[in-house]
């Protein structure tokens, strides 16, 4: 281990290195480009940086940054629920990283949202001006806002320990269970409601993806994304921040991968089942023969059934590498599902030349946002007690 840590320690970004490491340079470039596009977008309007049009009001900033982003940030509630509600203490070391990823995820979603909406400074209007209570978007907005706060509070224990504010920290810790339950409730609501957003457009979304079960599909797949994301993230952070991890963390992380892998596999199986049921209740079998049907099968078999199986194998053989790669595949799959619902299978009636294809600057912003996430994550884990327990607070739980 120690030797591995040393290797990781040599990795070019450790804070004690000079500022111009390869990572910093590339990240820097991306950030600069991002900032430039930012200026363009807010000075010139959406038209200058996006390919959005009247038929495609939502592009990848919604389809990827928001839809996929929120789904992938589900790790927070899944893990904390597992540990605090279901009392699986052996995964405790996974909670903080998960919460952190969740928190960053949501924070970045909100950031991305500021780019997408026409008048971002009005984002609080639904709460302070008029409440469009019949809109599922209102429900999503409310939950995301609340949940972001919850996540912040949950996460705040780390910086508080870092800053050594014992009292405040202890208050937060005492709230843990309450916050967790809150978190689960809110997540259930908005994860599903993201899917429910499309219930109002049955004539635009391809029947294979449109279903009365959309909310359920989205909620279940978000759990899958959450579990996989935890494995994925822990793999990465272990590779680069092993020197930051304490004994417990290193000890537990294999167990985490195996346990979460098993869970993910199980949920994937269930997800696959209900997807099939979805086809049958609307009697859409015949559509599977069409081109969109083929695409649907790619998603269902390649990114649901396959990972489900791979996870199972990985767990049976205790094959961590397989599990880790599968987690990547799964994360990709869920993201793909969101893109399908939001963009690809949407407006499927339109002739191909009228369909939307993102402008490079849109992709630029998405990459920029992801990079931001990585940077902040790195900043935090290299300073705060995320991957290890703060010496003063052993037996904290």
């Amino acid at each position, binding site marked *: 281990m120690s030797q591995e840590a040393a290797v990781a320690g040599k990795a070019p970004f450790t804070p004690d290195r000079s500022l111009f490491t390869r990572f910093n340079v590339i990240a820097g470039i991306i950030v600069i480009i991002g900032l430039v596009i930012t200026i363009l977008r807010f000075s010139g309007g959406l038209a200058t940086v996006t390919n959005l049009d009247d038929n495609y009001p939502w592009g990848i900033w919604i389809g990827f940054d928001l839809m996929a982003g929120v789904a992938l940030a589900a790790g927070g509630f899944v893990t904390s629920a597992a540990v605090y509600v279901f009392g699986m203490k052996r995964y405790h070391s996974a909670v903080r990283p998960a919460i952190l990823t969740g928190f960053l995820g949501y924070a970045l979603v909100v950031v991305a949202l500021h780019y997408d909406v026409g008048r971002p400074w009005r984002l609080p209007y639904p709460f302070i001006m008029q409440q469009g*209570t*019949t809109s599922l978007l209102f429900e999503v907005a409310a939950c995301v806002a609340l949940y972001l706060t919850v996540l912040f509070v949950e996460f705040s224990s780390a910086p508080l320990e870092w800053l050594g504010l014992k009292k405040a920290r202890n208050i937060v810790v005492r709230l843990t269970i309450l916050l967790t339950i*809150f978190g689960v409730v809110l997540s259930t609501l908005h994860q599903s409601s993201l899917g429910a957003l499309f219930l109002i457009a049955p004539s635009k979304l391809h029947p294979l993806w449109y279903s009365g079960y959309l909310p359920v599909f989205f909620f279940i797949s978000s759990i899958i994304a959450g579990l996989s994301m935890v494995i994925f993230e822990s793999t990465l952070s272990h590779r680069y921040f092993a020197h930051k991890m304490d004994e417990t963390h290193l000890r537990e992380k294999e167990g985490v991968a195996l346990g979460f892998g098993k869970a993910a596999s199980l949920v994937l199986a269930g997800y696959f089942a209900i997807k099939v049921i979805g086809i049958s209740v609307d009697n859409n079998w015949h559509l599977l023969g069409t081109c969109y049907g083929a695409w649907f099968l790619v998603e269902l078999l390649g990114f649901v059934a396959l990972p489900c199986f791979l996870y199972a194998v990985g767990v049976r053989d205790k094959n961590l590498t397989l599990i880790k790669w599968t987690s990547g595949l799964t994360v990709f799959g869920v993201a793909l599902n969101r893109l399908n619902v939001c963009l690809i299978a949407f407006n499927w009636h339109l002739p191909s030349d009228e369909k939307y294809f993102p402008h490079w600057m849109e992709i630029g912003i998405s990459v920029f946002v992801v990079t931001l996430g990585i940077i902040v994550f790195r900043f935090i884990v290299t300073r705060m007690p995320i991957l290890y327990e703060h010496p003063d607070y052993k037996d904290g739980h």
Partner: protein
Amino acid sequence: MDVFYTLQDFMTYTKGVTYLLMAAILLGMAGFWCFLTDRDEDE
């Protein structure tokens, strides 16, 4: 009671009430849980 001419108006009203209730429920639940369990310590 008010008369609604569109389902839209009706839902705007009823869902509005529902949201308020939900807030109340969330807080109430927490409170009630404490009330339910604050004597558990000494057993």
